[in-house]
């Protein structure tokens, strides 16, 4: 499974939605994921890809990690996975 599909699976599980209902344009807000759900998602993504995500919950918008939409999350994770290998 590609990175995008795996990330969508993780986010969908957190939002208690069907993966089909999570689109690339979706925002965490629109999916009903709050700050606690966000850190839980980041933990699950780190575990799944064995990466470290540069995310600071004190100031999410100013992190190096772009959480503005599902597609921005996926592209940042793809970069982190690429850097790892």
């Amino acid at each position, binding site marked *: 499974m590609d990175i995008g599909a795996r990330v969508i699976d993780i986010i969908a599980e957190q939002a208690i939605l069907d993966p089909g209902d999570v689109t690339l344009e979706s925002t965490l807000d629109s999916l009903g994921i709050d700050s606690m759900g966000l850190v839980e998602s*980041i933990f699950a993504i780190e575990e799944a890809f064995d990466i470290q995500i540069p995310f600071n919950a004190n100031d999410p918008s100013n992190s190096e990690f772009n959480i503005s939409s599902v597609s921005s999350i996926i592209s940042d994770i793809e970069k982190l996975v690429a850097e790892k290998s």
Partner: protein
Amino acid sequence: MNRVVITGSGTINSLGHSAKETFANMAEGLCGIGPLFLRDVDRLDIKIGGQVKGFDPTTVFNRQQLALYDRVTQFTLIAAKEAIKQSGIIFSGELAAKSGVVLGTAGGGVSTWDDNYRAVYEDGKNRVHPFVVPKLMNNAAASHVSMEYNLKGPSFTVSTACASSNHAMAQAFQMVRSGLSDVMVTGGSESMLCFGGVKAWEGLRVMSKDACRPFSANRNGMVQGEGAAIFVFENFDKAKNRGAEILAEVIGYAMSSDASDIVMPSKQGAARAIKGALHDARLSPEDVQYINAHGTGTAANDKTECAAVADVFGRHADNLMLSSTKSMHGHLIGGTGAVELLACIMAVKDGIIAPTIGYEEADPECALDIVPNQAREIEVDVALSNAFAFGGLNAVLALRSV
């Protein structure tokens, strides 16, 4: 000063998943202690405990709740649900603003500490789940009860080892008696039956490998238990006006500190707490018919406790009943006083005295009526509940039938 009554009770412990089931099994003299089922039990010297059986948290809580609720919080929420439902109170408006929750626990989320230390030390992982802190903190259970039931008044968690619940309930009682709150949710919980939790207790070498036999000459130590018991303490007039079922009246309490030793109990400290509770409840020693003993099944506790009771009650000590229900449900550490208050409620409400089971041999140093092995039916007006903690912190509560 307001009169304070109990209008709801709930529990989950090794004797039952509800107050009703626990009362029935206490009256039967059933033993909830058995072989421990937990990870790495083969590496433990102590392989018995009063574990909650037949409990599958996934049937009660959803995935998101389970990510946040340690086993101790799960027990607390189950007991709170039963108690608050029985009370019939819905917290809203001014009542919600002034009602709070004061709970006792000694260890809080011990399994969460245990699992995550295992992950980072044993499994070498460098990352833990983000909710480890909110899951393990000692006040997690109290906070989740406050959120679930809209309790916005004074709320906190008391941690005084084996007296935690009694100290907590004493605080809640004081708040309702003084008029600070009309209703307080109180009690306590513990869940230390995991590898690290049992291993730590093993270190003290006060644990029995076969049974908890308080006051019996052949006793050989304490046995751990787990679970929770929660109560609704309410202003008597308010409870009466709304036609609530009243289980018992809380009539007094006292706390004392031995100020002497971190583990050895003191007869004087225990006696001062018992005497203080009598004084606070305006009782003469002769008014008391039943005491739910701290009764851990260790030589140090049982002898000291009997000596303290003999000191305070004089000749009347021979007429009163003193039983330890830890013989059935084990020692719930910070939650123990809460589960034991159920035995006091059963005594004053139903006239049934829960026995001290496992009693085999008389001990001249514990020569009181400890209600051996079989429950007794007898009308009781006043009952006390003793708790004497490590660190020498004692708290005794007094209940009366209504």
